[in-house]
Structures are given as structure tokens and as C-alpha cells.
């Protein structure tokens, strides 16, 4: 029987079954859910929470501190995606350190670093290589070029994360989640099958989703309908296959090895990251051991928010001392962050209700 999209919308609005908490673990899903107002389209019985899927949000303070140290070092310049500039370190952000002479360039693609490096051979350019499975292949392609062209003045400071390991860790730690909107672009690389072990182990549905509003609603419908079943649905078949991209995984495997990784607010998670292999250590700007994670404000609840145990509005700092203009935690910094979007939605909600009065 054909299903009309309106039926899905009506079903999700009227749903009165057992309460479900669904987690999305991709910054672009977080942003899309906010943009399309998905939360307002769901019954109160369906709660959406944002997991640790924004690469900037999960970077510990020790990593930011190390970037600042490098950017202040003689003949060294840090190159980064824009979001990273404002993430608080233990005492300040990379952007704030610019006032003291920290040298920082922003780029759109890591490969742009090689252009900068070619123009200025006396400077070492350190790329702030953060990201998940989707981003790491771009770093591997950059390393391949560096190897081929014998480029010596570029290094990476890595904070690379892998998704299945942290999901397993969250669920193993008792996170109260009934289903996952699986990350669309991570799945392009890993394949949807990467989530089968966790789905089966914990008896939960995963649904790989695209990024349009109707795709996300369809995925939520798929998860609600699959409640309590350990299975993986692929609702993004135009981009995602069961096996993913072997090419991408091969080139990543040539340069990187699995390692424990430190996640902001969560701590160290075994096997959830990647480091450069020992034979490529000349390209590593000191990435191992950056595990320290100091809260800028002890009341910050980023860690609980990233694991679905608290909503942004549960944090005493939210919207008061912590705002997008002056973020205390990384979730408020990034345009893929949970607190950032909750804050913007709250502002627009109050403007809406103001209009009605």
C-alpha cells in the first residue's frame, strides 16, 4: 500500500506509543533538524537528542591548547577550518590568542594548506586535522601528495574520531537511547553495515538518513516503526551502500592506525580515534596524548548533552553566560553544535510569540 508523506507527518505528530529517545550523531543532521523545525513536528513522546557528531564539539581542550602553542611558535602557522578558531581551550581560544601573535589561517579544503606551504617554504604549516570517517580521507589524499611531492613544511595535528566505537561506548555506558539517525556522510565511507554490530548488540534500530527535512522525518518514522529491533535501515541509498567506500578506507589505512581518542566532556574512549602511523611521525605535530579536558566553567554540561543525558536548556549556563557570541563550551561554538541551534531556535521562538502578542 503506498504511503503518503502526509501520513508520515500525521503519524509522528499523533504518535502515542512508548516514549522514544532518538539520537542523531552528525552535525549536519543537527543543523538540518533545527533548520526544518523537525522537533516541533513530532509528538511529545518522541525526543530527539544530539550525540557526539560534531567534530569541533568533541575536541578536548588539550588539543586547542596545543594548537595555540604551535601558532605562537616561531616560523609556524596553524591552518584550520573556521569553526575551530572559537573553540575554548583551557584558558582561551585560538582566535583569542591571535591578539598575542598566534598565526592562524582559515581554509575551505585541507589541500589549500599545500598552496600556502609552497609560497612560504620557511614556515611550517600545521593543519588542525579534526573530523570523522568522512573527513579523514581528505587528509590521506593530502598526505599522499606530500609524500609524492616531497613536501617537508606541512604537518598535521590530528583529532580524528570514528563513529561506531563511540556509539558502542555510549550505549555500553547506559545511554538511554531507543534508536539512532545514523550519519549520512560517515556512512558513505563506512557503509551502513558498520552499524549492524551495535544494532544487534543493543537491540536498537539505526536508520541512515539524508539531510532534507522529509528524509529526516522518514528516518524518524522508520526508527519509530522499528522500535526494539536490532536492525539497520538505509534511507539514503542514492549515496550510501552497505559496504561503503573501500578506496577511502584503504588510503586512510595506509597513513593512519586506530588509537584511543579523548572526547570533550566524555573522556577517553578506546579504539575511537586514529593517529598517524609511526613511519609518518615526521608529519605529526604532536597529536598523541592530548587527552586533558578542562572545563572553562565547571557548570558546563557539554558532556551530558553530547551523550543525550541532558538537553541544552538543562545547563545552568545556557543562554546566560554561554551564548554563541561568548561560548563556554564547544557545543555552543559550532554551527553544527546542539547548544548553538537550541539557542538560535529559542531566540526565534520568543520572537515568534512576541509577534502574536
Amino acid at each position: 500500500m503506498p504511503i503518503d508523506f502526509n501520513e508520515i507527518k500525521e503519524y509522528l505528530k499523533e504518535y502515542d506509543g512508548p516514549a522514544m529517545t532518538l539520537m542523531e550523531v552528525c552535525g549536519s543532521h543537527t543543523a538540518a533538524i533545527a533548520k526544518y523545525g523537525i522537533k516541533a513536528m513530532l509528538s511529545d513522546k518522541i525526543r530527539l537528542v544530539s550525540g557526539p557528531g560534531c567534530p569541533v564539539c568533541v575536541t578536548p581542550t588539550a588539543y586547542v591548547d596545543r594548537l595555540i602553542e604551535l601558532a605562537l611558535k616561531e616560523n609556524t602557522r596553524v591552518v584550520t577550518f573556521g569553526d575551530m578558531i572559537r573553540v575554548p581551550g583551557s584558558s582561551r581560544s585560538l582566535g583569542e590568542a591571535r591578539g598575542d601573535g598566534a598565526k592562524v589561517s582559515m581554509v575551505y579544503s585541507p589541500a589549500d594548506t599545500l598552496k600556502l606551504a609552497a609560497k612560504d617554504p620557511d614556515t611550517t604549516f600545521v593543519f588542525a586535522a579534526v573530523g570523522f570517517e568522512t573527513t579523514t580521507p581528505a587528509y590521506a589524499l593530502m598526505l599522499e601528495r606530500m609524500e609524492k611531492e616531497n613536501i617537508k613544511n606541512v604537518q598535521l595535528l590530528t583529532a580524528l574520531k570514528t563513529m561506531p566505537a563511540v556509539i558502542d561506548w555510549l550505549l555500553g555506558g547506559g545511554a538511554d537511547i531507543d534508536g539512532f539517525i545514523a550519519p549520512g556522510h560517515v556512512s558513505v565511507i563506512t557503509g551502513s553495515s558498520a552499524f549492524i554490530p551495535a544494532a544487534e548488540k543493543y537491540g536498537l534500530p539505526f536508520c541512515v538518513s539524508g539531510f532534507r527535512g522529509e528524509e529526516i522525518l522518514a528516518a524518524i518514522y522508520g526508527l519509530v516503526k522499528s522500535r526494539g529491533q536490532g536492525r539497520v535501515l538505509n534511507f539514503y541509498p542514492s549515496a550510501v551502500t552497505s559496504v561503503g567506500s573501500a578506496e577511502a578506507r584503504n588510503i586512510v589505512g595506509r597513513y593512519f592506525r586506530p588509537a584511543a581518542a579523548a572526547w570533550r566532556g566524555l573522556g577517553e574512549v578506546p579504539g575511537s580515534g586514529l593517529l598517524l602511523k609511526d613511519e609518518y611521525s615526521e608529519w605529526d605535530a604532536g597529536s598523541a596524548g592530548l587527552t586533558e579536558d578542562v572545563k572553562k566553567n565547571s557548570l558546563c554540561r557539554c558532556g551530558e548533552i553530547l551523550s543525550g543525558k541532558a538537553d541544552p536548556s538543562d545547563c545552568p549556563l545556557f543562554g546566560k553566560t554561554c551564548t554563541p557570541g561568548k561560548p563556554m563550551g564547544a557545543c555552543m561554538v559550532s554551527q553544527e553544535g546542539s547548544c548553538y541551534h537550541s539557542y538560535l531556535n529559542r531566540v526565534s521562538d520568543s520572537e515568534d510569540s512576541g509577534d502574536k502578542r
Partner: protein
Amino acid sequence: MCVATAGKVIEVRDDATALVDFDGNRVSAMTGLVKVSEGDYVLVHAGCVIQVLDEAEATSLNDLMREIEGL
């Protein structure tokens, strides 16, 4: 850093990059992971083409729902 929408390949270049158009905004992207041709719709992430979209797989809602209802 993540562009959730697809862009169209305008030009494939010799240096393992392609020019990709996102609604008039054109960017250069690395093509080392997947083979691309002019006219392909691609996903670009961190300046790297990660996938060519398979239009034949742009399944309808009904096909997706069949997967659920078939339980």
C-alpha cells in the same frame, strides 16, 4: 565543513581535482577517491569528492517504506 547538498561537476581537471558547482558557487574538489565525469552530481566533504550520487538509487518513499512494512 560538511556540505550536505550535492553539487554538479562542471570540469574534470588533470591534477586530480574537479570544479563543482553548488547553486552558482564553484569550488575545486579533490577527486582521488571516486571517478567523476562532467555532469555528475557529487557529495563534497572538506574539499574532497566522497561520492557520486546514484540517481537510479534515488528511491521513492514507498520503496523505503516497503523495507519497514515488510517486517
